[in-house]
């Protein structure tokens, strides 16, 4: 089916979100929809998903004009929206999830389990998925969850599938799995709209692209004709750096040293050290245990055995509060679940970790925290309205900067950043990189956990690679390249390890 959106306008109150945007998706084609946060991608897709009505402009399916009257309408016409937050029920098996909506459509009085299992099996064969339909969804990794969503779209006979940032929480090998699936859909003449911030992926998998900026369409064309640099420029409106940012530094004093840290089931025998003014990477595939390792060091979990030294003195960290007192900061992954208090305003979100530090008799020094935030707002380039606005009123990148401000106001000596640029747009990403380097210049030991090889390569002086809870090796200088990192991260070539 050919979908065309022509000259779409949409505004909320006085905010013109879309201005004369057109989009076209051909059969059997993957079309990238690009743009920074707030560029209007979501609004455009919500219009195609029947959630919003356009103020002006029309939608044509195979040349026939349609007006959607609610989110169910486009689904019936074969347009399927896979949201970034997956709509799966963790405690149900795969097949029941796949039939969640169509169960009713087929007019079953009683849920026919065997029938659903068989049908799911058929879909899996068609799509080349090797899974038992009776597996509970909670036992699947993120890429398979994404694939289940896609299969659900297939069973609803979708001919256009919108995928909103399907790869943000996936590792490289899982991404490959999802891409293989997309290729299969393409062969079956399904059109796909692929929304992503990862330009490398766009180059790899997409046929055409459309870039939005500030609600306007700034560019469209064949992916083959452009480079990632071009796309980034279209998105932000100026040239984006891709150069290495890492600077050679004099090695300072040792700040943090771990000796044979072990936490059963999560990681074992981890030894490493970090020095002042250094940016150290920890990389690996999802499930390598690096987040768990640093959450444990941060006091959120218990250490089974092993020792931890700060400035050469052994420390026992029993709680996150202890960790903060010792000068350790930890910016977690998955901002929404782990870092944002959505019922609080911006200044409170930025101050929460240092309330205790400045409080007198348990009374919060609101004025001190406001002052801190206004200082940090300048250095971090946080774009926001009133301090008393809710944190959720900010874009992803600015939210992340507020979380960063929260940690900077605790004056950490070691700052652990777990996936610091997750869900952050290109411009804000570069800002965050600048901040990281400035922190290192100030003598803070910065530890970056990331699966994104380019991020590690651009920022870090050294990198540790983890695999299944083991430290697989340490890379510096020439050895630190994407290929070696990948080899170590997949469990191979442990011999490269040097220290």
């Amino acid at each position: 089916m050919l979908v065309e959106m022509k000259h779409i306008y949409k505004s909320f109150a006085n905010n013109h979100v879309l201005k004369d945007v057109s989009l076209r998706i051909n059969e059997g084609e993957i079309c990238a929809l690009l743009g920074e946060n707030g560029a209007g991608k979501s609004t455009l897709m919500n219009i195609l998903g029947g959630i919003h009505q356009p103020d002006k402009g029309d939608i044509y399916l195979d040349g026939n004009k349609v007006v959607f009257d609610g989110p169910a309408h486009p689904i019936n016409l074969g347009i399927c929206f896979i949201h970034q937050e997956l709509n799966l029920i963790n405690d149900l098996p795969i097949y029941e999830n796949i039939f969640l909506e169509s169960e009713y459509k087929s007019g079953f009085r009683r849920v026919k389990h065997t029938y659903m299992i068989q049908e799911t099996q058929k879909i899996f064969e068609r799509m080349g998925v090797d899974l038992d339909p009776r597996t509970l969804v909670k036992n699947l990794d993120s890429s398979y969850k994404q694939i289940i969503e896609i299969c659900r779209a297939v069973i609803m006979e979708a001919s256009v599938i919108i995928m909103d940032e399907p790869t943000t929480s996936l590792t490289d090998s899982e991404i490959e799995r999802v891409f293989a699936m997309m290729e299969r859909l393409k062969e079956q003449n399904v059109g796909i709209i692929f929304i992503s911030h990862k330009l490398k992926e766009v180059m790899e998998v997409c046929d055409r692209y459309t870039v939005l900026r500030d609600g306007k369409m700034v560019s469209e064309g064949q992916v083959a004709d452009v480079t990632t640099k071009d796309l980034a420029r279209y998105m932000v409106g100026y040239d984006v750096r891709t150069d290495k940012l890492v600077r050679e530094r004099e090695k300072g004093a040792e700040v943090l040293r771990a000796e044979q840290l072990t936490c059963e089931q999560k990681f074992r025998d981890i030894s490493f050290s970090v020095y002042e003014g250094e940016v150290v990477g920890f990389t690996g595939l999802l499930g390598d245990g690096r987040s768990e390792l640093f959450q444990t060091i941060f006091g959120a979990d218990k250490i089974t055995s092993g020792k931890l030294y700060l400035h050469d003195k052994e420390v026992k960290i029993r709680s996150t509060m202890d960790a903060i007192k010792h000068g350790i900061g930890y910016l977690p992954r998955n901002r929404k679940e782990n870092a944002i208090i959505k019922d609080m305003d911006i200044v409170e979100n930025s101050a929460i970790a240092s309330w205790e530090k400045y409080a007198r008799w348990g009374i919060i020094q609101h004025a001190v925290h406001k002052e801190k935030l206004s200082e940090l707002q300048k250095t971090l380039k946080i774009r926001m309205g009133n301090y008393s606005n809710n944190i959720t009123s900010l874009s992803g990148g600015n939210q992340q900067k507020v979380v960063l401000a929260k940690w900077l106001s605790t004056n950490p000596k070691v700052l652990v950043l777990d996936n610091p640029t997750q869900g952050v747009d290109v411009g804000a990403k570069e800002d965050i990189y600048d901040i990281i380097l400035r922190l290192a210049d100030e003598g803070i030991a910065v530890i970056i956990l990331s699966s994104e090889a380019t991020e590690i390569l651009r920022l870090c002086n050294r990198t540790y690679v983890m695999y299944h809870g083991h430290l697989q090796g340490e890379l510096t200088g020439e050895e630190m390249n994407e290929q070696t990192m990948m080899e170590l991260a997949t469990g191979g070539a442990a011999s490269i390890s040097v220290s």
Partner: protein
Amino acid sequence: MTEQNTNVMVRFLTWFKHNWSNSPLFSIFIALIVMVILQTIVLGFDYPTFGDWFQSWINNWLNILRNNASIAIVALGMTFVIMTGGIDLAVGATLVTTGALAMTLLDATGNGLLASMGITGWGAIVITIIVVIAFGYLLGALIGVTVSRGMVPPFIATLGAMMVFRSVTQHYMQGASPRVPSEFLLISNLKIGDYMIMPIIYWLVIAAIMYYISKHTTFGRQIIAVGSNERAARLSGINVKKVKFWVYALSGVLVAIAAIIQVSRIGSMDFAGSGRGMEMDAIAAAVVGGTSMMGGRGFILGTVYGMLIIAVLNNLLNLFGVPPLLRDAFKGAIVIAAVLLQRKEQTS
């Protein structure tokens, strides 16, 4: 001139609409004002002089406030508990247990614990107050430990505690009819000027303290953080277990204070029936006041308004002569209506 008037009108309406849809406290306050007006109208204006009318109006109000002071104090503690995403079903049972302890300690019929130890008079009263409050803390702390360290869901922990506390109290107090010394009654019945307003003063002072705690102390703000996103709170260096422990302990302390007020008002206590359904009234006051049962959102001021709304409603039902057994129906409807009103605001 008229143009200016319409201008003012329009500006007032936009201001009103803005607040109505943005500030939950505002709509609750408006609801309260409506209740007050209703109450005033029902009371009537059939008095010889304005002074008489005013006197009767004031007396009616003081009655309402005094009658609800102890439960209003319980509701304040409940608000903190609910703000962490928990619930405290044990408040009624704790009230009866701490009340029973107070009366056993002070009993003036010859069996009083303190009297048998030779302590009488004001000394006995001061000791009783301290011991009872400490006991309230202990009962609350017991629940707090079960919830925070034992990871028992608050509903289960407090449901169990409710049954244990009430059953033990009833067993040991059966047949007993202790009587407190008359000095003790002064705690609630001391007249200031011509008015018996001590319970109201306790309520307002505690409400003010709780308001300050919720807005300006680390503990108060950490309650919101824990209720809103427990994981993020823990990863921000907040001692979640400590916060949870203290909301239940504080609730126990406030219940003990409420028990002292209740016992000293009438000098006796019905150990089988006292405090029954109190947890539901306290929850209702908090919820009508805009506190979210999911945690993370709550207002001490809202709970004060909520309590007043429920209290005035009770009084109105009384004045209208609605049969006692039918009154809960109205209360229930008001609670649901209040939440419906707030839900609309949240989704928009």
